[in-house]
């Protein structure tokens, strides 16, 4: 008798709970909380139009930093030579290469989030694919700046391009640097196209809702998209081809970047696991950057709290945790195999990493990349809180920058010729590095007011496909196949 009563009571509670669940679902998930299409379009347009004085102050400060850090310093370096930078013998590659690898890493998460989640039809991706793809393109621009700054004679850098010339001189296809250039160019072009394709319907939407120069701007970019059945079919085809094709490109880019090091004979560089290790490292820093960008966009732009919700931070937080674990695996694998190899120079180098003058950086890297993400991201409440994941993302990026710094200048400080051992002290690399960072933020800020940062049509499509359905007492989230 008592058992029966209890059962009835549980059922009652459950039914009430379900009612509550439905509310909860709507509040929590963007896909289940639809707004009328026109209203959503207006919200996105409004977020583009709204700029406070703070925006312009930050914009002006960043412009000054870019002018000083990037253009003035680089110009000075071109005129005076690389002597004003800190690179020396034996550290021929310094912060320029660190920044190149770092920015390529940042650019990886954009594609990772957008293409892989699109291919796997992960529904939470819908509102933030564009924010991530923009990072890819703008990150690659900074990587390009960093690699060209690094060159001794940048004015002849076109020699690295395979162009027909009367002397029949071609780039050396044995060199990983040639492959690097080809891979990065391919990635920049394909990721820009991949950014542009899903943007077309939103540009058309913006064209229909704007006047003046903006209308001309959107009209030109929207390529006359009207939204006919045929246009949509073509767009979907192109997008699915790109989403699948860009994933191997993405993996190849950072693998090739890792060959710059892995194909060399330096102790600490010549490691066969560098390919996947670098790819995972790139995703690690890239995910951190995506979550930072989303937290800033959500906090500073109008109407973004509707589109970017704690559920998205939660989902990316989970990915970050998994990638942090994968990175830890590759790091220790790399370390163990090198240590086990028993080469005396490698042993010396590993010892130098931990206990040399920059040993603090090695420990900071492990704390920022492994300890802090593992300590914070396991908790759903913490990883759904924007400011917490912002800090975690920031620390991961600092940690990943340290990792590249350890691999490049610190590992170069010692080599097989002890007579040449010397430490590295950055010079003009610092303003140039700050300049690339400022330029990245500046480009992003400009883009956030020029193109719709939220792919509205994708959100609308997702909201139409999602439904809460009741089966008996259970409330279930259903999705109908759209694509």
């Amino acid at each position, binding site marked *: 008798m008592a058992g029966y009563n209890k059962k009835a009571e549980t059922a009652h509670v459950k039914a009430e709970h379900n009612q509550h669940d439905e509310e909860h679902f709507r509040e929590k998930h963007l896909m289940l909380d639809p707004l009328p299409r026109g209203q959503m379009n207006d919200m996105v347009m409004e977020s583009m139009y709204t700029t406070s004085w703070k925006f312009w102050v930050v914009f002006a400060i960043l412009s000054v930093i870019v002018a000083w850090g990037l253009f003035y310093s680089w110009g000075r370096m071109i005129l005076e030579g690389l002597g004003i930078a800190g690179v020396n*013998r034996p550290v021929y590659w310094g912060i320029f290469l660190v920044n190149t690898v770092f920015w390529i890493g940042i650019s990886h998460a954009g594609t990772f989030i957008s293409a892989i989640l699109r291919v796997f039809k992960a529904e939470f991706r819908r509102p933030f694919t564009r924010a991530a793809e923009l990072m890819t393109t703008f990150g690659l621009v900074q990587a390009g700046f960093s690699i060209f700054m*690094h060159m*001794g004679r940048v004015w002849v850098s076109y020699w690295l391009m395979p162009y027909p010339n009367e002397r029949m001189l071609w780039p*050396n296809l044995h060199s990983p640097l040639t492959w690097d250039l080809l891979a990065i160019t391919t990635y920049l072009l394909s990721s820009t196209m991949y950014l542009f394709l899903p943007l077309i319907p939103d540009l058309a939407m913006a064209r229909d809702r704007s006047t003046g120069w903006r209308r001309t701007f959107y009209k030109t970019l929207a390529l006359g998209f009207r939204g006919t059945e045929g246009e949509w079919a073509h767009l979907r085809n192109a997008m699915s081809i790109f989403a699948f094709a860009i994933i191997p490109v993405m993996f190849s880019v950072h693998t090739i970047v890792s060959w710059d090091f892995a194909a060399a004979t*330096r102790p600490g560089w010549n490691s066969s696991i560098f390919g996947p290790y670098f790819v995972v490292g790139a995703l690690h820093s890239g995910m951190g950057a995506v979550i930072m960008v989303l937290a800033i966009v959500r906090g500073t732009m109008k109407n973004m709290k509707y589109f970017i919700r704690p559920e998205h931070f939660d989902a990316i937080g989970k990915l970050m945790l998994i990638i942090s674990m994968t990175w830890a695996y590759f790091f220790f694998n790399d370390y163990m195999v090198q240590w086990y190899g028993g080469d005396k120079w490698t042993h010396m180098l590993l010892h130098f990493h931990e206990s040399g003058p920059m040993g603090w950086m090695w420990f900071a890297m492990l704390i920022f990349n492994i300890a802090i993400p593992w300590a914070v991201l396991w908790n759903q409440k913490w990883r759904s809180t924007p400011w917490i994941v912002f800090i975690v993302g920031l620390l991961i990026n600092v940690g990943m920058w340290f990792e590249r710094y350890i691999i490049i200048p610190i590992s170069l400080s010692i080599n097989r010729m002890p007579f040449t051992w010397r430490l590295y002290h950055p010079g003009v690399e610092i303003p140039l590095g700050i300049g690339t960072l400022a330029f990245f933020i500046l480009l992003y800020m400009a883009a956030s007011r020029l193109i719709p940062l939220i792919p509205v049509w994708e959100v609308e499509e997702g909201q139409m496909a999602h439904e809460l359905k009741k089966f008996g007492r259970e409330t279930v989230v259903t999705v109908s196949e759209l694509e």
Partner: protein
Amino acid sequence: MAIELKVSEVKMGEAYVGKWGMVIDQDMCTGCQACVAACAMENNISFVGETDSGYGRSMHWIRIERFWEGSYPEVKMTPNQPMLCQQCGAATCEPVCPAFATVHSQAEQLNLQVYNRCVGTRYCANNCPYQVRSFNWRDYKRPEPLSNQLNPDVTVRRRGVMEKCTFCIQRIHKAQDMAKSEGREVVDGEFTTACAQACPASAITFGRVDNPDSLVSQLARVHGHGVKHLEELGTLPNVTYFKGG
């Protein structure tokens, strides 16, 4: 017209014999740096000045490395070690250059640096296990009388370009041209590199290693315990060192 891009096909291991080579007797070396000065004069190497030199940017195609054994107070100096480009048969600097600025010459079997093709990625210098390459970090000025000292046979390099020891290739060519005009072969000892010429202790000997009668080959046979640096990397260096003999 298609051009064949031939990568130097060198056989690994014992079978490899280079063309021009050098033996350096470390027991004879007094560390007087005459070779360093002579090399700088011969090859128009820039003087970088005190500040840059202190920061590890001094440009030398040859340097005298000094090491010691033990810890204070029982410190024992080891023989001086002149270090220059080893003119590897399978050089690690060559495949990594994206612009073909560092290449292997078929005629001389030397590693050449094509200054006006160099774009300054500095990958070759990173990948050189001997760390013997020098980079022009700036356009270094030559104070007035020194500008009259430049060797007309050697290119003057500008900023942003990598450079390194060439085994005084201008002297090799001069001797070959002379011999050709006189209708004979180059005789062993007819010419030598600037460093070998300047060495007061005759610690450096330069010549044909593929000729068993040349002085370098004879010295190598007499000593019998020559060492090639970092041979385990498979770079097939053409410089042999003698020590403790």
